[in-house]
């Protein structure tokens, strides 16, 4: 065996909790796979914006002779043709989390389910709130993905009589979520529940609520499965009754399956959709990774 197979990994940089977790899982998995399979080499690049990610992919092809690309597209549309170019060059392509805008490019697709993420949350609200209940929503950074989640959420509570008082962008950021929630609390006398849509934002939201002393009044649903939040769910914190999973560990699955392609003859084509499940005190233990930074 002369040449090592090189797997290029391109993911967004760790600008918020979920991506931080994803970065961590990616690095851990690469370390593990490198140790297990000496015939594999990895090139990991993280990008802060779309353009940079396209550059990274070009560089991997031009200078590192990658045999496979594992990519979590920053955005779907703009990455479609660069990734297609990699595919056309005869490389293996694994797409993670955000699908490309053209079907059939990737050999392997591993993803979370944004629609399910919004729907599962919405269904929990529908089931646990009375008609006429008032909720507020924090959105992420304006992106297609955020739109999908919010649309699914809204669809799920449609007709339930639940009123969304406000929907502002918290940018998946604790500080921003904190100040948005502070303002919600000044603005609205009565809030029954908060859909924070992300565990980082949930942390900020909880602080704002704690400051106003209105903990008893409302509960919060975040999302993604941050260890601190899972812990609270496990401990039956009434403020955080459930969480919705959107595992950053999906990158590990993608990497492992891609690696398998190069170290064995196992046929590994296909789609792996990791659904979003409702994390309740009963099943929380399965989602708890105390060593992850996320």
């Amino acid at each position, binding site marked *: 065996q002369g040449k090592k197979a090189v797997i290029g990994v391109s993911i967004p940089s*760790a600008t918020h909790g979920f991506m931080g977790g994803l970065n961590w899982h990616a690095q851990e998995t690469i370390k593990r796979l490198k140790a297990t399979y000496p015939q594999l080499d990895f090139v990991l690049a993280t990008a802060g914006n779309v353009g940079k990610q396209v550059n990274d992919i070009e560089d991997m092809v031009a200078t590192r002779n990658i045999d496979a690309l594992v990519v979590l597209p920053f955005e779907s549309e703009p990455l479609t043709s660069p990734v297609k170019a990699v595919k056309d060059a005869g490389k293996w392509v694994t797409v993670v989390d955000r699908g490309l805008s053209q079907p059939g490019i990737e050999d392997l697709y591993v993803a979370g389910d944004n629609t399910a993420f919004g729907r599962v949350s919405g269904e929990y609200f529908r089931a646990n709130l009375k008609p006429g209940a008032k909720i507020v929503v924090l959105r992420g950074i304006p992106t297609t993905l955020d739109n999908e989640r919010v649309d699914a959420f809204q669809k799920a509570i449609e007709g339930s009589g639940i009123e969304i008082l406000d929907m*502002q962008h918290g940018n998946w950021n*604790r500080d921003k979520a904190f100040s*948005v929630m502070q303002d919600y609390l*000044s603005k609205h006398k009565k809030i029954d529940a908060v859909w924070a849509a992300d565990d980082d934002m949930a942390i900020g939201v909880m602080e704002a609520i704690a400051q106003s002393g209105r903990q008893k009044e409302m509960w919060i649903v975040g999302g993604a499965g941050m260890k*601190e939040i899972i812990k609270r769910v496990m401990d039956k914190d009434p403020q955080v009754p459930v969480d919705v999973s959107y595992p950053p560990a999906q990158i590990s699955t993608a990497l492992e399956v891609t690696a398998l392609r190069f170290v064995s003859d196992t046929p590994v084509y296909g789609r792996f959709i990791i659904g979003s499940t409702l994390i309740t005190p009963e099943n929380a233990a399965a989602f708890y990774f105390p060593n992850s930074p996320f």
Partner: protein
Amino acid sequence: MSDAAVQKPARTAQLPGLSALGPLLALILLVVLGAFLNDNFLSQGNITNVLARSAFIGMIAVGMTFVITSGGLDLSVGSMAAFVAGVMILAMNALLPAMGVGVPLILAGMAVALVVGLLAGLANGLLVTQARIEPFIVTLGTMGIFRSLITWLADGGTISLDFAVRQLYRPVYYSGLFGIAWPILVFAVVAIAGQIAMRHTRFGRYCEAIGSNDKVARYSAVGVDGVRLMTYVLLGLLVGLATIMYVPRLGSASGSTGTLWELEAIAAVIIGGTALKGGYGRVWGTVVGVLILSLIDNILILADLVSPYLNGTIQGVIIVLAVVLQRGKSSA
């Protein structure tokens, strides 16, 4: 013969013209607008929220006023704040076994924050004054460096303060004295001290002189490099102080802490009437600038607007309008 000069109405220091009051006017207009849009706007709770939130950027912006007044710039403050917060939390977590949960631990953490801030500011200042690199480039470089160091320290995730320590430390953000939150009090002290330093001490006078014409300052026996260095060190210290107030709020730091704080701080300084080219600094203006920026955010959420996507548009328009009010000055 020289009577002519002496007879002149001597001490009628110029009244602050409309131009100087521009930002203040904009602030007042915003407050009126806010009160009009939402009844809770003037509630004590909301006012406390807005002021306390402004405190971090506010303290940093006061320091930034001195840097800009003396002809410098610092783009690294946001990343520096994240870095300082990260190191502070790590230090407290590390000292916890040895010191136990208690006020000494908190004080040790605060000391770490101040020292790290000071050193970070010193690094910027030395690169500017000793290596003679443009402040823009120096601090663009250190901005990237601090940001990536905190991300690395946090392993891409979040560094969290131990829960028990957190509980002890929380009141530093959330509680206060005489019903006024600590961050507000500290910010007020910093602002007043800054205003006094700018107007009534040698340091402030030298900053203005250096920013106005550094050659003249040098010819006038002003230690130009020393004063410049001091402005960066002071800013670093204030970033440390801001971090001390910031950490108890959420008890964590990550690679995304403090993003764009630099832009907000610089914008506050300029909105407040300090000249970007240096030579003229107005600390109280900076305070007004910080409040304007915070209020815009607050009002955008309190009011129900067309689409949250357009928040940025309204923000941009208000910022420009706020400065149009002091047009007289900048056209001079």
